[in-house]
């Protein structure tokens, strides 16, 4: 029997990457477990969810159960420089950054992939719910995971052909429920761990607002809350603490529910409005990555995801230049937040995406 290639699996001590590792072993690959020690906020009780000695110990235990070597790499500084600092800067500039997208581009599929390839691996695998296929005569394609509730292609749209060539995503064909069952079946001690919800680097409270207050005190910058007519409705404590589309916690009294519509950096004003006023029919995205390497030559219809957990919405995509596109939605939508990514799909196929600009 021919020996299958060497694969490095990015482990986190969670259920997904653990099952992904076990699957690869079962499929006959030569598997090397690798874990990144990322920068995380040192809470008083050191109980951050990711990359704690606890999660490292769990990943190490899983690796020993499935009999693969396991190594921890220190990525704290590079993670801080490439992910945390831009996260803080993004909020300070009144956008809503998505650090997971940045981490996948600069850390997981760059720093870790480089180490994996240097160590002799042919592939880097992760526990993402998405699929990579390579149709003959075609470029590599990134597809939605089969579990619609868990799809993670949204954070992988930044991958290039060269990265996809080395990517293995063993969980793409499974649902989360099946993955948990497999974790039990393989007797992995992580089978019943809760899904991670928040950003991995946040302190124990898991609240990015508290994080910003601690690491970017300049974001505490009170200003007016205005409606679209410019009428002052109240005072906010800092634009960074609000997200486009947010309704709860604005702290104004109004006869109708009010939503965050925009952040006006010049006036340091939070612009709010009614649900009707919160609809928009287009967006512009920049820093675009096209999965197949090139922008499409003509305008096209696509379904668009504007947030990690959002449903896909139909729209028409126009190419503005190599790194910029616009989307005109069929029906107006809410919650378009500059800094988040707009990711484009044709059916199951992820075509690419870009970062929503504040235009």
């Amino acid at each position, binding site marked *: 029997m021919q020996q299958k290639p*060497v694969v490095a699996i990015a482990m986190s001590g969670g259920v997904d990457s653990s099952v992904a590792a076990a699957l690869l072993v079962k499929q006959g690959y030569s598997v090397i477990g690798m874990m990144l020690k990322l920068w995380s906020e040192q809470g008083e009780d050191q109980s951050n969810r990711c990359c704690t000695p606890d999660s490292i110990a769990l990943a190490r235990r899983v690796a020993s159960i499935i009999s693969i070597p396991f190594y921890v*790499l220190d990525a704290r500084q590079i993670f801080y420089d490439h992910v945390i600092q831009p996260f803080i800067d993004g909020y300070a500039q009144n956008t809503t950054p998505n650090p997971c997208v940045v981490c996948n581009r600069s850390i997981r599929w760059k720093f870790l992939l480089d180490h994996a390839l240097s160590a002799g691996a042919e592939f880097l695998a992760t526990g993402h719910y998405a699929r990579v296929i390579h149709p003959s005569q075609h470029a590599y394609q990134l597809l939605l995971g089969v579990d619609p509730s868990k799809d993670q292609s949204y954070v992988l749209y930044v991958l290039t052909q060269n990265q996809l060539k080395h990517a293995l995503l063993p969980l793409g064909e499974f649902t989360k429920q099946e993955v948990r069952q497999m974790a039990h079946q393989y007797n992995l001690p992580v089978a019943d761990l809760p899904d991670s919800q928040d950003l991995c680097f946040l302190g124990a409270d898991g609240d990015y607002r508290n994080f910003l207050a601690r690491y970017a005190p300049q974001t505490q910058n009170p200003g007016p809350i205005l409606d679209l007519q410019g009428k002052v409705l109240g005072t906010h404590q800092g634009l960074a603490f609000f997200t486009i589309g947010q309704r709860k916690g604005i702290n104004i009294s109004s006869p109708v529910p009010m939503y965050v519509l925009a952040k006006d950096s010049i006036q340091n004003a939070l612009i709010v409005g009614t649900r009707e006023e919160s609809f928009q029919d287009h967006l512009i995205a920049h820093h675009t990555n096209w999965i197949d390497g090139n922008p499409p030559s003509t305008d096209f219809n696509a379904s668009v995801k504007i947030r990690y957990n959002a449903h896909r919405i139909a729209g028409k995509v126009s190419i503005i230049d190599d790194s910029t596109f616009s989307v005109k939605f069929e029906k107006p939508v809410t919650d378009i937040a500059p800094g988040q990514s707009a990711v484009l799909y044709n059916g199951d196929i992820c075509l690419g995406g870009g970062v929503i600009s504040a235009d």
Partner: protein
Amino acid sequence: MVKKKQVYLDYAATTPIDPRVMQAMMPYFSEEFGNPSSYHYYGQSAENALENARDKVAKYFQCLSSEVIFTSCGTESDNLALRGTAIQALKERGASHILITPVEHHAVTRTAQQLSKFYGFELEYLPVDQLGRVNIDDLITRIRQDTAIVSIIYANNEIGTINPIGAIGEICRSRGVTFHTDAVQAGAYLSLNVNSLQTDLVSIGAHKFYGPKGIGALYVRQGTSIIPAQTGGGQEFGLRAGTQNIPYIVGLAEALDIAQTERENRIRSVKHLRDHLIGTILEEISDVQLTGHPDERLPNHASFVFYGVDGNALLMMLDIEGFACSSGSACKTGNPEPSEVLSSLGITHDWALGSLRVTLGNFTTAAEIEEFLSVLPKVISKLRKIR
């Protein structure tokens, strides 16, 4: 993983048990299982084994048998030495000063720090030079009337440097201050003669010299003021209560006997390989420094820092290539803070992160070293590229 042949180059971390040692231990797990404190035949037989072992160890310390205390490991020996003498010295004569170096093993450092934190000892660090050695003049100026204990490592685990223990011991003795040395790394290759070392307390652990893990010994000079760290049935002359682990004690004694008897041969066989390794690495790789003393170092020990290389990634790549090495301190959690030892030698952060320790042993062959020397430069250059 398709495992290539694995080459073990981490003998300072631990060593495999010599088959002769294993054989000597075997009867004491089964036929000769008695408790040495028992009155009957079984007890007497176990006691006989225990005392024979003690005599054997005493022979290499060149001390009385009653000055050898068996413990569970080198760390426990260090703990007993420091805690047992410091607390007693404080009580007896109000001595509240502890003098150690910044390059001690954590078994000493953490114990001294605890004594400082909970018992109010003033903990002072004797500086070391950039090769990791203590300067006698520094000791002379810092040792005090109220110094409870001086503890200085014999041969350093991370950088291999050997301290002038005899000269240090002489100063301590002339001042009437108790002197301990952690000889855990030294046991395999250096003399443990306490008369030339002029020590009051010496710690060793068997697994560093081809004996089993989980067994150590402490030499305690007769007349040393010391209280037990573990109390109970009064075993080990009242200094270390608990039923003695006879098979392991027999193993320690046998391993020490073999190590010390075969010392010259062992040194000869590892030293020229080690010298070749150091010479080649310093010649063929750029931006590398040898850490520790070039000559006054353990004969099986080589340690380096590579500029612009991540130590963890280096260990990973070497392991995948089939070479088990170490960075000098345990960093399984990927938390490679620059080691305190390297920092105290004045090695800067950028260098200290790229540390590598290669320690040879009885089973290291010239072919393995050649193989290692062909792989290491490639790995270093790969890692420097992806940084």
